[in-house]
């Protein structure tokens, strides 16, 4: 492989080399090439200067104030509002579930028991409830089974 082609292949890896993000074999390849190639070594040195300069510039420039951080800290640590939010949402969801469920149940039951309603409607309502019960039992059964057979259950990551 001619040197120019080598340089072309190595150059894109120089940033990764600088950041120590290459695989071992890649980094060895780059190190080996750098020993023999002045041009790429010079480029690496230049990239390093750019890297340090930019880092310093960005650090000085970030221009935030301690007051900003303090204010955010207060907001983040405002436990009551977080707690209140969670509780309020819980209450809303629970209430909606109970009220909605009760209404549907009552309506279904009333229609089902009302013998003046057509047979197809009453049969459909019965099917609906039976279907729901069946689904519930199926999920329950699956959960219990997986609990018994899941060999990764006790593995903590």
């Amino acid at each position, binding site marked *: 492989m001619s040197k120019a082609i080598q340089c072309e292949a190595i150059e894109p890896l120089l940033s*990764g080399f600088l950041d120590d993000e290459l695989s071992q074999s890649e980094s060895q390849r780059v190190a080996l090439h750098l020993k023999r190639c002045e041009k790429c070594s010079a480029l690496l040195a230049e*990239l390093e200067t750019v890297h340090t*300069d930019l880092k310093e510039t960005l650090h*000085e420039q970030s221009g935030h104030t301690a007051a*900003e951080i303090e204010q*955010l800290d207060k*907001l*983040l640590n405002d436990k009551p509002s977080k707690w209140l939010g969670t509780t309020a949402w819980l209450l809303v969801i629970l209430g909606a579930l109970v009220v909605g469920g009760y209404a549907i149940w009552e309506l279904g039951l009333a229609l089902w028991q009302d013998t003046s309603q057509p047979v197809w409607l009453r049969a459909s309502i019965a099917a609906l409830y039976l279907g729901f019960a069946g689904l519930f039992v199926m999920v329950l059964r699956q959960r219990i089974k997986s609990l018994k057979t899941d060999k990764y259950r006790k593995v903590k990551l």
Partner: protein
Amino acid sequence: MKSDQHPWLQWYPGALALARQILNGSDEAADIVQTAYLKSFQNVRLPNEAKAQRAWLLKVVRNACIDVLRGQKKFADSEQNTDVEVDCSPEQSWLQDSRKQRVHQALTALPIDMREILVLRELNELAYDDIAKVLRIERGTVMSRLHRARMALRKKLQGLENERGEV
């Protein structure tokens, strides 16, 4: 940094810098970062690991910035940033240092995707894997984009130095 402060606040300068870079120094940056912090905490499915949490936060900040830019319809033609004048607000009195001034100027002249990846790497010091997560790109793309960004910055800097040499 006080020890009793929220641990996430140590990432504040980096997050703010990211927002500033994407938004081209807009005043909205601080608001966006603050909202991103509050939004992140409302999320139930936060990762447990600090590293992943940081990537998460930066992603939220970046997405919010992109939304703002979309609103301004600037994101489509990031080219227009190429010739932006460097605005020297009073807070940037550090610009007296001419080398840093040139670095700042060169950075401002780069397109958004290069600026954001440079901030993520040089200021936030994220590993390539984490940058890949924040930008939602492949790890290999991180390496090549970062390299292109550094080469572009180097070229701009050289241009500025030459300009200065001629004056």
